[in-house]
């Protein structure tokens, strides 16, 4: 039983990271119907932004330092997200979706490739500094909760709640939802779609950056290719929850995290990736709209 609870804690902590990244995917897909492959790279850049920020900023006391670095990374990535949207995706807004998809793949590859060049980050892994001391906060009946796991869960929750408020209780959020529902009509209604889309990218990228920092803290080894696998799994989470649906992304993320942890704990770790992709295939084959999505009928 202890083990099951421990797996639960581990799974939720991992799942919240997936959820944070999945939110970015789902939001962008909602407004642009585009799978933003480059999102995983933004996540990676967030981790590295934190790494460089930590080495350049003089040492403050512990707590504020973490928040400062987090905010810095989120800001940097938000900016990057907007830049990518502006120069890579906006020109293709009226092209067939396939073009945009390929472009997204291209951006993703480019960022990874540049990151691996020696004068940038280099291909070898870096060690993320310990911004928050790594202690066991609580050990209840053998189930250990580490400080980093707690921080990850807490941060993810705070951000998700914040996002929820943004999307469902603000005018901007309503505008975002309108654009994702029907972009052309939203424009006719007076919504500046360009601005809304740019803001969507900003928010999504900021969340990815936060995920990057949290992952850097919990798993201190970071490298330019760290986004690939995590990004794919987060995408699976988004699809599982219903792509375009915010609650879906959160639920999907947690689910994938839990399933993966359980599969590794009770099954074999070498099939860990296969589990996620297996879920993806099952979802897409049997219920492509995901848990919360609605089947969309295409009008010819």
């Amino acid at each position: 039983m202890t083990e099951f609870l421990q797996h639960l804690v581990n799974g939720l902590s991992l799942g919240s990271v997936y959820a944070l990244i999945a939110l970015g995917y789902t939001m962008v897909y909602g407004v642009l119907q585009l799978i933003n492959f480059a999102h995983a790279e933004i996540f990676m850049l967030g981790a590295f932004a934190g790494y460089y920020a930590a080495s350049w900023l003089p040492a403050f006391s512990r707590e504020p330092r973490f928040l400062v670095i987090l905010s810095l990374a989120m800001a940097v990535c938000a900016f990057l997200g907007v830049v990518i949207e502006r120069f890579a995706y906006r020109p293709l807004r009226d092209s067939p979706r396939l073009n945009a998809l390929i472009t997204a793949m291209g951006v993703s590859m480019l960022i990874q490739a540049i990151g691996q060049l020696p004068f940038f980050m280099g291909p070898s892994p870096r060690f993320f500094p310990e911004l928050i001391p790594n202690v066991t906060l609580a050990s209840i009946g053998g189930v250990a909760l580490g400080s980093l796991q707690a921080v990850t869960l807490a941060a993810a929750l705070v951000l998700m709640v914040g996002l929820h408020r943004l999307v469902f209780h603000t005018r901007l959020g309503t505008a975002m939802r309108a654009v994702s529902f029907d972009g052309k009509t939203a424009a006719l209604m007076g919504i500046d779609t360009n601005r809304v889309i740019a803001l969507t990218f900003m928010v999504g990228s900021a969340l990815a950056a936060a995920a990057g920092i949290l992952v850097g803290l919990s798993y201190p080894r970071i490298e330019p290719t760290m986004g690939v696998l995590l990004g794919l799994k987060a995408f699976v989470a988004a699809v599982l929850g219903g792509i375009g649906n915010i609650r879906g992304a959160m639920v999907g993320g947690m689910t994938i995290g839990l399933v993966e942890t359980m599969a590794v704990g009770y099954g074999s770790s070498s099939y860990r990736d296969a589990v996620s992709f297996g879920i993806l295939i099952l979802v897409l084959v049997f219920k492509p709209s995901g848990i919360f999505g609605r089947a969309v009928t295409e009008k010819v």
Partner: protein
Amino acid sequence: MSKRRNPHAPTGVGQHRPFASRRACLLLLAIALALGACEKKSSARSGGRATSGGGHADAAEILFGEVSSLTGPEATFGQSQSRGIALAVREINEAGGVLGRPIRVITYDNQGKPTESAAAANRLIVRDKVHVLLGEVASSRSLAMAPIAEEHRVPMISPASTNPRVTEGKHWVFRVCFIDPFQGLVMAKFAREELGVSRVAVLRDVRNDYSVGLASFFIRAFEDLGGTVLIDQSYSAGDIDFRSQLTEIRAKQPEAIYVPGYYTDVGLIARQARELGLAVPLLGGDGWDSSKLFEIGGEAMEGSFFSNHYSFENPDPVVQTFIQKYREAYGEVPDALAALGYDAARLAADAIERVGTLERSAIRYALATTRNFRGVTGTITIDEDHNSVKPAVVLKIRGGKATFATSIEP
């Protein structure tokens, strides 16, 4: 959407699918029958093409081909190996070279990939026509290179690959290090006798031949010595989250955990183990040997042990001189891989010196008959399996450094 085939629609796209027509079926049957009439080949596979120019006895310089993982996840392995080789070659050249000729090392980076290693070995042999092939550290990559060396009949020396399969059944592949059956035994003995441990857990890297092999050898030796292996978990190189496996291990309450993986993963594993409340010592193999291990693992590594090829604390003057020269050249203490690279290069030069020719089969013979070659990592004698029989050291991690604990003879 009608799922039934329209009988008037074209039958297939282009060519016949093999099973779609009777003619194809008959053809298939004929092939099967023909294949049934086969026999075993004569076992002496005419070892392939010898490289043109096999007897470049008049070459102006001696060419060593080196394949290393200069980039990639285990970059320090390749970098250390490369430095060791470079230092050895520089020394030899400064002393007049071999047979009066200088040695030149051609190095290719395999980015940590086995296929690249094979391709690099190919290039070195076919295009660059090297006399001796040096590499690799990782057993998986040496395994990729070995068939190519065999095929083209070029002697190959692996500095640090410990999986027995690298030299098994081969004529042209050698190594200057010990092999994993011995290494597994070393740690098993140390755990049982020095640490008094009888219940261990094993956590191996399932994507890595070295790790898988070493874990099996350890388990066998440990059980032979009367210990119990409580649980055998696995991970994949490159994973970042090991908590699930560690949670399962924690449930069994082992006295130690054997983690025969590479330093990049071991560091993270140690951290997460401590986070989960597993305070028992970790045990490992030579894959741990890297300065980065302490950077990644930090305090979590304290009190752990691993088996290795050499210790920088060894007072032997041969070792200390080497360490001093390496420090002067590169500014840091050499790890075992640098030392082994150094030994491998020196052994190659020594072999050439002994036979007095650059004829590859002669070099091979010289390597095979090596006796008591004084290396930095010990006295090297090549046995009939082309392996070196040497003692191993066990190092303890204390104060962020790998300090000498004990030495175990074969």
